[in-house]
């Protein structure tokens, strides 16, 4: 569909640029703007300098159940729900704003960026279609993401009950080793 008004087209381009900068995939751009696919591809190349990645979007809702990914995704959805409940920002703007606030948290705490923008966008769609939902943890009362169809009467979140191997990734091991070497050298 062609966009007639130049002003609204300008706004759409601005929105698309912002999305590309945050790391959105082409499918997200197509769903949230009315710009044609060719223009979006061109825009993507201009902003990022490379062609948009091809293939399907990550579509698994099970990904959000992993310990680390659940922590990050739960934080994002809590921010998103707060914004939806108390401010008048909606739809894609709300996703962008909550993702920016999430990124801020990551940066302040020197965490890895586990949740990509595309995943965050997918997450909101999963929650809207009631595939995933949030449930309070019986220990800390924080709201955490769960499968809507699971039994949640006694849900204890991954942060109150940290699994023994949680966070012990290859990356973390490498970083610890590097730190040790630094200390030895100093």
């Amino acid at each position, binding site marked *: 569909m062609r966009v007639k008004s130049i002003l609204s087209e300008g706004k759409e381009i601005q929105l698309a640029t912002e999305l590309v900068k945050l790391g959105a995939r082409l499918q997200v751009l197509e769903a949230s703007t009315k710009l044609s696919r060719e223009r979006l591809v061109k825009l993507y190349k201009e902003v990022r300098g490379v062609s948009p990645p091809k293939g399907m979007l990550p579509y698994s809702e099970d990904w959000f159940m992993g310990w680390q990914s659940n922590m990050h995704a739960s934080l994002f959805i809590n921010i998103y729900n707060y914004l939806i409940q108390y401010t008048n920002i909606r739809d894609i703007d709300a996703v962008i704003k909550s993702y920016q606030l999430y990124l801020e948290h990551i940066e302040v705490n020197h965490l890895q960026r586990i949740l990509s923008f595309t995943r965050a966008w997918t997450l909101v769609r999963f929650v809207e279609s009631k595939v995933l939902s949030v449930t309070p943890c019986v220990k800390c*009362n924080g709201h955490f993401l769960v499968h809507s169809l699971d039994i949640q009467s006694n849900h204890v979140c991954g942060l109150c009950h940290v699994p023994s191997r949680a966070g012990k990734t290859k990356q973390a091991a490498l970083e610890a080793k590097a730190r040790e070497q630094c200390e030895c050298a100093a």
Partner: protein
Amino acid sequence: METSQILDEIREVNLGYLLLAQHMLREDKVAAMYRLGINEDVADILDKLTTSQLMKMAGSNMLLCRFRFDDSLIAEILTSHKQDRALTQSHAAILMAGLPAEKIS
């Protein structure tokens, strides 16, 4: 500390808080509402305060900003020496974002 000194410091904190809140709200209202934990009505009031009103408000003998944590959250933050600091920070952020915003009834 003498009472007059305490009052002076309260006034300073109040003034700093109000000015910062107003600045944040004018820069980016949505993000500020999330960070301050306030709803639209409170945000509008803060945003519309004139300088003289702001000074009058700050000159109270009570603090204008309130402690935002509930018990479980304090426990969470206090036990942070046991675990990874980033982890407890994330936990605290999840709990805090889930709390209701301050509102005017």
